[in-house]
């Protein structure tokens, strides 16, 4: 029953190669000792990682991306925890509308979001600031946090909270000592997912970043558009490493297969 035929097996193998090929190629080229992007790679060398460390612009962008991811994911989570509790636990007029509103950034093309943010931030005179980037990223990554939190809220065991109330706990104490600890895996999972989404974001950011707030993907994009030296591969390898580390943490905490179970819509 669990066996697959040779045709399906070949197809599966080709599919896996197709999915991995571009990533493996980038990771290999990052270790080239040569001055150009090509394969095969002549022996491993850290030349382009040293070049990366010696490039203050890329190093600065790396830290901007990390800071932006941390602050934006925190803001998005802080805003979405109460919203997810409202949607998940109460029946009220406009509940469906609120859910749609919270998920809506996923429906709008990211280019259009970028354009809209650029116009807005320019009119309120905060275009190019770090605060502007944080706020816009929080909106873009909000749906990812919301989705994880809604699943977590749906899985809450209400008997624990009722027990707390019946033992004389106040509403706030119940929330702090019973609700939040049960939500914690969902909160942490949502935060990590939001961090990855923010750390990788390009299309929105390219419109609203200034030279002083250029994130790593934006700097990488501009660099590739101008020249193609192996520096772009070593930057990519760093991005992949950060993403993989966060993904592994997410898997430990949450289980990646569970992440995709309800991810279809």
């Amino acid at each position, binding site marked *: 029953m669990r066996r697959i035929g040779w045709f399906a097996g070949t197809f599966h193998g080709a599919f896996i190669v197709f*999915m991995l090929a571009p990533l493996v190629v980038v990771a290999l080229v990052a270790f080239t000792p040569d001055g150009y992007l090509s394969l095969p790679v002549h022996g491993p060398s850290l030349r382009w990682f040293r070049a990366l460390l010696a490039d203050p612009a890329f190093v600065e962008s790396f830290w901007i991306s990390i800071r932006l991811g941390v602050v934006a994911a925190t803001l998005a989570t802080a805003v979405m925890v*109460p919203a997810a509790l409202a949607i998940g636990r109460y029946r009220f007029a406009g509940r469906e509308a609120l859910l749609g509103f919270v998920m809506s950034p996923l429906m*709008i093309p990211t280019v259009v979001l970028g*354009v809209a943010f650029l116009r807005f931030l320019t009119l309120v005179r905060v275009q190019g600031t770090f605060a502007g980037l944080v706020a816009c990223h*929080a909106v873009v990554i909000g749906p990812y946090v919301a989705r994880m939190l809604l699943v977590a809220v749906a899985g809450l065991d209400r008997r624990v909270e009722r027990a707390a109330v019946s033992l004389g706990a106040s509403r706030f104490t119940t929330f702090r000592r019973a609700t939040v600890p049960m939500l914690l895996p969902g909160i942490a999972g949502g935060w990590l997912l939001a961090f990855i989404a923010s750390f*990788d974001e390009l299309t929105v950011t390219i419109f609203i970043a200034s030279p002083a707030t250029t994130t790593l993907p934006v700097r990488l*994009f501009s660099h590739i558009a101008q020249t193609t030296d192996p520096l772009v*591969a070593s930057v990519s390898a760093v*991005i*992949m490493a950060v993403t993989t580390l966060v993904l592994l943490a997410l898997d430990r905490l949450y289980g990646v297969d569970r992440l995709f179970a309800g991810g279809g819509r």
Partner: protein
Amino acid sequence: MDQTLESRDRTLRRRTRFTPLWLSLPALALYGVLLAVPLAMTLVLSVNLYDQTRGVIPALSAANYASVLGDPYFQRIFLRTLRIALITTVVAALIGTPEAWILSRLAPRWRAACLLTVLGPLFISVVVRTLGWTILLGRTGLINQALLGVDLLDRPVELLFTETGIVIALVHVLVPFVVIAVWTALQRVDPASERAALSLGASGRMVFFRIVLPQIVPGVLSGSVIVFSLAASAFATPALIGGRRLKVVATTIYDEFLTTLDWPLGAAISVLLVVSVVAIVLLWNRLVERRYAAVPG
């Protein structure tokens, strides 16, 4: 006594009636200020006018829309974007659907690893994934080297800076969405129906085409809608693989905003992009609903 209890009950209910509002207020505030307002501003911007010396001029004019819709240059860009998005969607559905089915039939230990391999790239920045394809697709790239090496080609094919190259990279970027949607649909397929077909002597391929496929078509279609809307508005992949010559709608918007600085025209193209993608997705859903309403069960 009764009355005080009743009034206490009422105040309690009134207090909880507004709780969801208080709870959702931070999200509503953030999204209201940073989503609804900017989008409304973009809509307004699209009916304003632009002058090279004076910048954006407040107006209520359809001139931007007229110049986009009437200009063969923009028409070609919209048609190219539509063509790339449609081909990407069809290819992604054709290869993503069987892959999801194969994944569902693997032994659990293999399945987890393969699922991570197929879906993991979704988390890696699209710039990185596209960079991989520019290395692979180039004139001296790995694909040309391999094809030349086994004498399938006598001279290198140009894949970089072509629509084919854009489609290949976009399929790679977006096919996980088909796999996720079909995977979700497969979880609802009754394994008894497959076993029944097998016990009646059907081959594996026949089981897939006659038993499984009809049950997962809704999943295939919902995954395809996601792929289409993302392909039609993709920016990074067409920008890096298509270069400056092969413009799509998203890269045109970028150029209008950051190179030409004609923001009102760029805003009009943005509005047209949203309208056309939404229109096609709604039409698609309508067709699917009608098709499925006609089939009982």
